[in-house]
């Protein structure tokens, strides 16, 4: 069986008033389809070094993203691309949190249906590590050389990847499904 999916990176801008302000990844989102079923997952990281208000908001990211994704899947035409769902999230996050990268669609083969959840978690984990690495963070344990500290960024040593959150979004509304 084949999982078709598309991922997005959600980042956090440290200072919206500064054009050169750094942004760093705080979540990886995956939306996909397997055997006619819709799947989604999000992995979130909340850096300890952020201010308390930002951390309080970021702590609820799972629920916020799930709301946007579920709404998008419900209103999605059956044959429309998964990028339509990611576009809904993109347009909903316009301030400190924003969608910084939308990856190209991809597929992965699985032998058993019970591999779906684990496969999504692995993809989210890999996606978040890739985004953090590209942003200059050392995520692997005990790197021999730490990247240079960047003012205002989280301490790389504080980064711990939390468990991912995987769910099955709702199907399109009946009227929309009939148009497909």
């Amino acid at each position, binding site marked *: 069986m084949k999982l078709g999916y598309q991922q997005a990176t959600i980042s956090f*801008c*440290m*200072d*919206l*008033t*500064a054009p050169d*302000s750094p942004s760093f990844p705080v979540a990886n989102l995956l939306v996909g389809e397997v055997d006619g079923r819709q799947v989604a997952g999000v992995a979130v990281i909340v850096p300890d070094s952020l*201010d*308390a*208000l*930002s*951390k*309080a*908001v970021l702590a*609820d990211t799972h629920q*916020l993203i799930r709301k946007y994704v579920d709404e998008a899947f419900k209103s999605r035409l059956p044959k429309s691309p998964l990028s339509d769902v990611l576009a809904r999230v993109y347009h*909903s996050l*316009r*301030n*400190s*949190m924003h969608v910084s990268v939308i990856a190209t669609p991809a597929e992965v083969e699985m032998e058993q249906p019970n591999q779906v959840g684990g496969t999504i978690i692995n993809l989210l984990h890999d996606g978040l590590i890739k985004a953090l690495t590209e942003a200059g963070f050392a995520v692997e344990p005990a790197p021999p050389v730490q990247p240079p500290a960047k003012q*205002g960024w989280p301490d790389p040593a504080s980064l711990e990847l939390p468990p991912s959150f995987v769910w099955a979004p709702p199907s399109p509304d009946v009227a929309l499904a009939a148009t497909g």
Partner: protein
Amino acid sequence: MYPRQFPWEQIKRFVQTGPPGTELIRERLPAAAAQGLAFDTWVGQTDHNDHPHNIIFGYVPNDDGTVPVADGDFVFLDFAMALGWHGTWAREGSKTLGIAPFPPAMDAAIDRAILGGILDRIENVSDDTISEIVHRIPDDYLVPEHRDVIAHGLRTRRGNVRALLARTS
């Protein structure tokens, strides 16, 4: 614009209670709600209901950590659906006022004393000030007949906001 901003959708769960660091949201809400309700009712803004993005909370994080937030406030965005948009203020339509729709949690938090002061300020905006502000918009973006409708509408409504809002207090 503030260094950090979150939309209503992301902060509305903190307007009654929340973890440390979210206090300023609750401190600023009563005044912001009063200011927003009075102004929106005056200008006929209809797009600040429980909208996820048109109300945001912006703030300056405090890097020295003595307090969670150095400064911040609510910001009201997107006034496209105001000032008689879609012709609703034409032919004296501006005389028909409705209370601006606001999120219920914001309505409930309004500071009535501050609201009275804001209404005083709205009622004391002079005709000249209204005319000067409305005429800042170039003809290419606001044709003269629409400009006149807006200026007339603001003058007409200026003295009627208080009575309308008094019915809800």
